[in-house]
């Protein structure tokens, strides 16, 4: 317990110091100070989270008692600790990045306010994660909402920024309201506001109440997580924030929505009905599909990354849904695996999304534009940024040996295990959602091939792109750190999964680590509960090389089938990375050796004999993703706004101008009808606002008469 007290106090005081310094120091010195304080706060948060995550001793402290409401409690269990570690892992590089990045706002906007809100945001996030009762959760949640709103609307002189951030705030508040209602309903059943009391709660909670709490909390916290159909704010708000804030929004704050979902529905009031799990699964799959579809056709880098965040949050939610279904169907091991897969994906997403956003911001700061149709050829001019962005793109496209592959593989494998569920309806839902997620994975590859290729490869498509230069060292270091983490989490999954398993054990009341990461290849043997048949499967694959000498576990395994007929799905990115290194390195050396005598000349690309190949003759981002636009036309329903054919006498056609506008499917299906209904309702109620004072006086009189009547009659 004391292990966390100290860093927490240091953390909060450092936050206060940071705020004070931000106010006191002149703007010139502010970026460095923000960065420094941010780094130190991240390290402290990492210490706090790491202590609880690895040692397992929970932390709890009671702050003070609010009259009639109860104690304000800060407590951290392993779930909070995991989220805290992820937050810190993202905040650290983002703070380093800010040291250079914030300099572009010198003279334009006040860096003081940025510093204040930045530190306050971090503190409020940590408090959300540490909240042990409903009140502190809601208070810190509001603080976090407001701080993030203020940061998103940092560049307030642009109209679209204020509109987007306002939408984010409004929808966020609506979500918070729903979540608050859910929490209070839950508190009503147990009579107290503390989480421990809610967890222990009455055994009998009616089905209706369970459903209401589930739906309210799921969609309420889902607003923050960016789930369909409440994600309209996300693609608008993320791109308009400053680069480092976008990274934090996508990589940290979206996770808080998931934190709320898992806290309420996994921990406080575990899901008891398969239907609730199905809701989560379906909503998650839909979000994933819709998110990636819109990401693929988007040409603005940051908006594309925002849509992609929706996709990844959808995948995590689908994982949660699968976990809920498995636990209600009586498969705790599978449920645990599903939770681990989802949490792993969430962690990976934070890392590579932050990396991608930082990369996009670096490009934006150098080129001055985010549209991929104006970039191009940046690989030669910004090699380090390109390399880090490439790592991020490979990770998000789920390619080994990076981290996205592990979590995506686990999620899809878990969904394939629907065969073990007895109900056919559920199996069908699982199959459809699995197919949807597979399609999502394929589209994600398309999307990020486009993103990387159009921005960094090829020829420069605009003057600005030809003048870009590499960014400064702090920005490169921050991106490289995240890239390295992506690689590490990809090639060492067998060290991450046991940690996640300990996070998940309280939720499913079973440890699944041995099922996922079996120890039988280790020095210490440890065959234990595995049959010879099962282990011999690995011998057939040749995985026994090094058995008995390996220091750590290398395989991630999903086992199915009986002892006589074991069917194993296995993946080892650790060994794979080693083999890949050997193959690539070996091939490289071999080719160098064989072609030593060859003369190599470099000539321009063969273009058919033209004098020059202007950028108009190279593929554009729109062109690359056009097939997707055409195939999924029914989803996009793009309307051609202006197609003018200027012609002078019928046969001389000189120009065809064609621009199309698209309205997001969620807006079309959910919001615009809602808005129209509201407008209709208010228009109908408008008759009350006649503007005449005597009518209003009459209303007051009638209301009074009604109350008197009620009082008399009751």
């Amino acid at each position: 317990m004391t292990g966390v007290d100290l860093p927490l106090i240091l953390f909060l005081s450092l936050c206060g110091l940071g705020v004070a310094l931000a106010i006191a120091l002149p703007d010139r010195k502010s970026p460095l100070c923000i960065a420094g304080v941010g780094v130190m706060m991240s390290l402290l948060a990492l210490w706090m989270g790491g202590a609880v995550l690895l040692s397992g001793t929970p932390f709890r402290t009671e702050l003070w008692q609010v009259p009639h409401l109860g104690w304000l409690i800060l407590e951290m269990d392993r779930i909070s600790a995991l989220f805290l570690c992820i937050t810190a892992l993202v905040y650290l590089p983002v703070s380093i990045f800010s040291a250079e990045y914030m300099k572009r706002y010198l003279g334009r906007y006040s860096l003081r306010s940025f510093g204040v809100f930045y530190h306050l945001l971090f503190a409020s996030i940590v408090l959300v994660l540490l909240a042990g009762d409903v009140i502190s959760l809601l208070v810190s949640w509001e603080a976090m909402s407001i701080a993030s709103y203020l940061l998103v609307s940092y560049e307030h002189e642009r109209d679209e920024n204020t509109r987007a951030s306002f939408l984010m705030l409004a929808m966020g508040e609506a979500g918070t309201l729903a979540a608050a209602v859910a929490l209070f309903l839950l508190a009503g059943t147990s009579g107290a506001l503390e989480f421990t009391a809610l967890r222990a709660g009455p055994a009998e909670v009616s089905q209706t109440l369970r459903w209401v709490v589930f739906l309210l909390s799921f969609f309420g916290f889902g607003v923050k997580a960016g789930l369909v159909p409440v994600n309209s704010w996300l693609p608008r708000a993320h791109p308009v924030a400053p680069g480092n804030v976008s990274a934090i929004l996508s990589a940290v704050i979206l996770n808080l929505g998931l934190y709320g979902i898992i806290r309420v529905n996994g921990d406080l009031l575990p899901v008891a009905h398969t239907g609730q799990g199905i809701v989560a699964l379906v909503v998650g799959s839909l979000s994933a599909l819709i998110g990636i579809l819109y990401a693929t056709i988007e040409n603005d880098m940051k908006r594309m990354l925002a849509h992609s965040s929706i996709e990844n949050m959808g995948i995590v939610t689908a994982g949660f849904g699968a976990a809920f279904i498995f636990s209600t169907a009586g498969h705790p091991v599978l449920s645990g695996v599903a939770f681990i897969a989802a949490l792993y994906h969430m962690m990976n997403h934070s890392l590579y999304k932050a990396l991608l956003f930082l990369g996009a911001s670096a490009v934006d700061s150098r080129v001055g534009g985010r549209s991929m149709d104006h970039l191009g050829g940046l690989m030669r001019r910004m090699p380090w940024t390109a390399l880090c962005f490439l790592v991020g793109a490979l990770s998000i496209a789920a390619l080994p040996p990076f981290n996205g592959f592990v979590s995506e593989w686990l999620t899809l494998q878990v969904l394939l295990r629907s065969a073990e569920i007895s109900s056919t309806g559920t199996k069908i839902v699982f199959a459809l959602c699995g197919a949807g997620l597979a399609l999502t994975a394929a589209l994600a590859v398309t999307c990020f091939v486009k993103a990387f290729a159009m921005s960094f490869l090829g020829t420069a498509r605009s003057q600005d792109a030809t003048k870009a230069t590499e960014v400064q060292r702090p920005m490169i270091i921050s991106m490289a750190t995240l890239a390295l983490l992506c690689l590490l989490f990809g090639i060492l999954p067998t060290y991450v999964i046991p940690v996640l398993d300990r996070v998940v054990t309280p939720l499913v009341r079973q440890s699944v680590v041995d099922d996922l990461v079996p120890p039988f290849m280790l020095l210490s043997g440890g065959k234990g509960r595995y049959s010879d048949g099962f282990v011999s499967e690995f011998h057939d694959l040749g995985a026994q090389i090094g058995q008995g000498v390996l220091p750590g576990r290398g395989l991630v395994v999903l086992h199915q089938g009986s002892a006589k007929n074991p069917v194993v799905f296995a993946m080892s990115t650790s060994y794979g990375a080693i083999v890949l290194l050997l193959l690539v390195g070996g091939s490289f050396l071999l080719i160098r050796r064989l072609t030593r005598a060859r003369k190599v000349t470099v000539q321009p690309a063969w273009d058919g004999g033209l004098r020059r190949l202007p950028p108009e003759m190279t593929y554009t981002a729109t062109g690359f993703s056009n097939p997707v636009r055409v195939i999924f036309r029914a989803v996009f329903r793009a309307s051609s706004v202006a197609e003018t054919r200027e012609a002078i006498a019928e046969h001389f056609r000189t120009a065809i101008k064609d621009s199309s506008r698209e309205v997001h499917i969620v807006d079309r299906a959910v919001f615009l009808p809602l808005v129209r209904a509201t407008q209709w309702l208010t228009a109908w109620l408008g008759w009350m606002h006649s503007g005449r004072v005597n009518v209003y006086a009459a209303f007051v009189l009638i209301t009074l008469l009604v109350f008197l009547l009620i009082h008399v009659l009751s």
Partner: protein
Amino acid sequence: MTKWIWRGIRTGIKTTSYPLSPELASGVSPGRPGGHQGGDKSRLVIERCPTGALHLTGDQIGVDYRRCVHCFRCQRGAHSGIGWQTGYEWGSREEARDDDRATLGGAFQRSLHIRVVDCGACGACLSEIEQTNKPYYNMHRLGFFITPTPRTADVLLLAGPLTEHMRHPLSSAYNAMPTPKRVIAVGTCALSGGPFGPSFASNAGVTEAVPVDVVVPGCPPPPLAIIHAMLLLVGRAAPSSLHSVGPTEGRVTP
């Protein structure tokens, strides 16, 4: 689809057996003037040639095949009378820029990739080049293939008098080829500019823009001559001369 396969099988093999045995069918080559013992009419015959391919060497009419466009004016009409050579093995190395560039031997002998570049050709040379890829001549059996990109080409096959507008594309294509690379110039236009000659819009052949290794005169050279030139390039055939020497070279028609 089977009807097509059956049709192809029924048609049988039409391909010539050249170079294993000479092709004797009629109409495979226009032939070319073969020199003639000079006489009092020789000056009139020489004047009939519109491209200046005929000249007097001693008392014989010599033919510079780089300029002959097969107009038949020296053979028909009032002042005709010159020997006519049948045959089609017209490939020559005499215009090669670099004498010590060895023939493209080794693996290239039976596997050669060719990129055809049209430098302003009238269409007849290109049509004859196309015929080499068709059933009657089928150069695939000899290991010669046409590629669509100079990046994988070993040899450039050029036709046309090199119009000014094609100068840059030609050098671009030549530079895009990896070494070892060679050039075959096909047709009289590519050797001397043909009827279009050096002018403001075209040049006296492709030899001034790229180094040429093998040339095939003719207007157009028949497919067998083009195949002979390719075989010459890889050392599987013997070169012929670009100039005729006298009446011993061919039969004299009255």
